[in-house]
């Protein structure tokens, strides 16, 4: 799961810019509550993605609070496509192996 946090966050951001909490809520919603990212690792993962140029962040004031909003960059969109392709390949390989279990 830990190795896929980046891809999951990129996927959640593909719907549009969002704050950190909204991203974790979106992941929970899309997975029907089964996929609960450890929230403490959410922001470090976002910072890593930002350092890699895959997401960009900006701040805005909402109700007197400074909030940081994340969005996908062009590189992030390309990385997400590549991650999805790798994931499909991995899934197909595992399926092939499991199919032959007697």
């Amino acid at each position, binding site marked *: 799961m830990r190795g896929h946090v980046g891809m999951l966050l990129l996927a959640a951001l593909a719907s549009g810019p969002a*704050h950190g*909490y909204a991203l974790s809520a979106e992941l929970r919603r899309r997975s029907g509550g089964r996929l609960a990212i450890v*929230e403490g690792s959410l922001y470090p993962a976002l*910072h890593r993605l930002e350092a890699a140029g895959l997401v960009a962040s900006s701040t805005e004031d909402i109700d007197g609070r400074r909030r940081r909003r994340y969005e996908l960059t062009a590189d992030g969109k390309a990385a997400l496509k590549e991650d999805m392709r790798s994931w499909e390949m991995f899934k197909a390989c595992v399926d092939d192996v499991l199919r032959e279990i007697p």
Partner: protein
Amino acid sequence: MSDDEQISSYLRRVRSALRVPREQRRRAVEEIRNHLDDGAAAHMRSGATREQAIGLAISELGRPDTVAAEFNDTGAHGSDSTGVPRWLPLLPPLLLFVARIGLLVWSVIWMADGWTLGERATQQAYLLGAVTAGVLSYGAYFSIKRAQSDPAWRWGAWTCTSLALWMIVFPPF
């Protein structure tokens, strides 16, 4: 402990365990604070009391030291937690070492055809200065490397720097 104190205490513990540059630390704490507020609000909408909601939001984030460790692992930091470049303490002892080695070489070249007693004493002083500066440089380097895992070692690096600066301003030999 009041609700706000519960959050403040959590943030304080995260902040004290963070080993990232000052700006990144400020941003991390701000994001966690907002996340806790959002989480607590969501739990209150689901019927929890404020105290319960804050407790749940905190437990979802995880232990403060674990959260801080995740931030600390986000990559190599070029600065310490105060924003000062990590290798800066090495500069004065290293400059002193280079200068002292330069003086030593110069003294060997220019005094090669026979030394007076005074010249020999001068050369010995240059040698002692070079060795001392070398030890201080290594001490600063070693402390900086160790400070990556234990920030308390930063004091070791700055102590070597202070001694080097003292030697530059008031050369003992």
